[in-house]
């Protein structure tokens, strides 16, 4: 059934059919990196997500999307038009030998094609279908549209962030919401697989992108539920505090993340104050201040200013790298606001051999990718191959696995089925 010869992985006996678009690409990548045999099924001409930038050398081309590369490692690729009758028959044949189907079409779309979960379940009762949609398969919003900024807003992860004189803010660049949903899809897939081993049946895993975002909230729902409190949309004044606290500080060549929390577990001040003193940055106030005060959160703004003033000066005289080095040495909870360039230079990531060089022979290039998401003592996850080219494995799957003849293959191609 599933072809052998692939490097052993935790999921190496499983076959995945990945129909997902932009919103669900991470799901199949994660299963693939864990060793599953993932086949990306794209429409003839390639998935629309291949038009999402950034692009290799800024050349917009469906075979040069870095966005696509990043989220489609460890997958094979075939093309198939499932809107044609012949395409549907081929897809059903593939489903017979599949363990998972991942899809991100609007609810009901696959049902109309006769490829919804109830239909696939009849073909293969063990198949697990992971459906990733904006709001889930049910409910009054199920047919509504989303986008990253809409998902972030409706998931509740936008209202508290930003500054009071401007709109609420969300992350720039590619969608974070879709990555959360994609990861949740992979977890759902393996949860349903566990269930299959006890019940013998597959099922549908229903992912809502809105809900995936709502699963990223710290205290926001509890604050409303328990105290009817809504956080104010400002960076620095925390609820109940007697002062504003700076959280992101400018330094010589960028910014660092640091906050003075007195003796709090999550933001202890003393390690930094001691390091500053060693470096000759101190004041009478800092020397005499009682850092064990249990009421630190309620100290006055004047007191906080006397603490933050010298701190700001200290940071401005040093680079991110210098501050990180001192923070590591002195066990200070200070981290730089890293850029992607900084991350690629990280000695920690280098020591853990995190980065993975992936060859792209068609481009004559090697590109650095984030490596394994886990260090495991058994068969660690890994990128087994770069993202597939459009239809790269069509012949292999159709001719060798489904026993379609060369003539038939050519005819299907001419008819736009593959």
């Amino acid at each position, binding site marked *: 059934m599933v072809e052998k010869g692939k490097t052993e992985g935790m999921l190496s006996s499983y076959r995945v059919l990945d129909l997902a678009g932009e919103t669900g690409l991470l799901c199949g990548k994660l299963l693939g990196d864990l060793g599953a045999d993932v086949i990306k099924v794209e429409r003839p001409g390639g998935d629309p997500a291949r038009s999402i930038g950034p692009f290799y050398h800024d050349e917009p081309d469906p075979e040069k999307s870095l966005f696509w590369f990043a989220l489609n490692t460890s997958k094979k690729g075939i093309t198939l038009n499932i809107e044609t009758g012949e395409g549907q028959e081929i897809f059903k044949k593939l489903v017979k030998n599949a363990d998972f189907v991942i899809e991100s079409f609007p609810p009901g779309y696959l049902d109309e094609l006769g490829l919804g979960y109830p239909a696939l379940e009849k073909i293969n009762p063990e198949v697990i279908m992971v459906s990733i949609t904006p709001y889930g398969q049910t409910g009054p919003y199920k047919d509504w549209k989303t986008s990253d900024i809409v998902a972030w807003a409706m998931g509740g*992860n936008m209202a508290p962030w930003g500054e009071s004189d401007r709109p609420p803010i969300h992350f720039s660049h590619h969608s974070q919401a879709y990555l959360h949903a994609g990861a949740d899809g992979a977890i759902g897939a393996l949860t349903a697989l566990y269930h299959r081993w006890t019940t013998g049946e597959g099922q549908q895993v229903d992912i809502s992108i809105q809900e995936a975002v709502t699963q990223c909230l710290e205290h926001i729902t509890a604050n409303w539920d328990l105290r009817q409190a809504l956080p104010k949309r400002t960076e620095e004044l925390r609820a109940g505090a007697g002062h504003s606290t700076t959280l992101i500080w400018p330094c010589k060549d960028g910014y660092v993340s640091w906050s003075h929390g007195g003796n709090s577990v999550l933001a202890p001040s003393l390690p930094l104050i001691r390091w500053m003193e060693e470096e000759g940055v101190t004041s009478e106030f800092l020397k005499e201040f009682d850092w064990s005060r249990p009421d630190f959160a309620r100290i006055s703004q004047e007191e906080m200013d006397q603490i933050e003033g010298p701190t700001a000066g200290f940071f401005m005289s040093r680079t991110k790298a210098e501050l990180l080095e001192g923070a590591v040495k002195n066990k200070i909870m200070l981290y730089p606001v890293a850029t992607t360039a900084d991350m690629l230079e990280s000695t920690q990531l280098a020591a853990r051999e995190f980065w993975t060089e992936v060859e792209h022979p068609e481009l004559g290039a090697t590109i650095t990718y984030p490596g394994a998401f886990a260090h495991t003592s058994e068969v660690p996850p890994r990128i087994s191959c770069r993202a597939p080219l459009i239809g790269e494995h069509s012949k292999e799957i159709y001719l060798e696995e489904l026993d379609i003849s060369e003539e038939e293959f050519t005819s299907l191609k001419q008819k736009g089925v593959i």
Partner: protein
Amino acid sequence: MAKKLLEGIRVVDFSWHLTGPLTTKHLSDLGAEVIIIESRRRPGWRRGAPRSSSTDQYCTSKLSATINTRDPRGLELAKRLVGHSDIVIENFAGGAIKRMGLGYEVLKEIKPDIIMLSTSMQGQTGPHFDHPGSGHKLTALTGFSNILGWSDRKPAWIGAYTDFIAPRYNMLAIMAALEYRRRTGKGQYIDMSQYENGIQFMAPLVLDYSANRRVASRTGNQSPSAAPYNAYPCIGEDRWCSISVSTDEEWRSFCQVIGNPGLTEDARFATLTARKENEEELDRLVGEWTIQHTAEAVMNLMQDAGVAAGVVETGEDLLDKDPQLKHRNFFRELEYPGIGTYRTQVGSHFLLSKYEYELKAAPLLGEHNEYVFKELLAMPSKEYDSLVEEGVID
């Protein structure tokens, strides 16, 4: 009662704060027996009364046993418990669990097929393995802060963002390890770095730097492929609605909804390229329309016309207003008898077509001591009483 999905899986949970507890919440809400090992001596975290903090949300369906692991007898109890378990999870600072005497090498001797997962800031190895931190600060190191905020201002703040990426990778690793154990009989050690988990969500920008040497920075709420694309002010105090328009068809629908179909003919806004060039003016126009409506009305009008739009929801919107979340029973109400109720979501981030979740309120500190020690470890009552008295079971 139907069998619970993870029935028969026992988890020893040494974790606290966010990443660990959110990971084990996935397991406990699916019916695994997750036993939180905690101590009345440990500061912070679960000291509050029930219904006082988010920790009630993170600890649903779990059991609680209190052990002073600094006492050698306490350590021995923890080890005995591991001998009866399938999974061990901890999220202390890098290296700490080993120093406590509960490292994988030790636990593997007790239970050869144990699956142990450590989730820490930067992993168990490398020069920065013990650099203290929290998700708040790690969000900066992982590059997220640099791509959040306005291009003319310093990076914005988004709390402990990476604390919500790491649990997903933890859950995935645990589920994969359970499958691997089923197939091979082998357990394993899983060393998770929240730093490395977070960078997975930066992947396209990492490739952009590697291939093009472009350093990604923050660009406010802008998208290269949509305009309008922002949160717009609405009637009410600090009320906003996000709107995004990508295709020309959506732009036509949008202009219909705001009662200004002529706008599609306006050269400044006729194409996406033009709208991007005149985005500031466009945002102003959109805002002048939205401010006359409630956020809910803007969302409904736009979505009915096929344009993506959504209320910038607050905690109140999520819990008490959003009809979609209500329909899907996203927040479950749980009860502390005699104390009151609270609401939280299911630890698994999906619905299953053939399984219903059942949640229980988070346990009180030490609530399951008798079950864990007397039943599970078959400890005689006399020994139990004296360990309680001596503060080993604290």
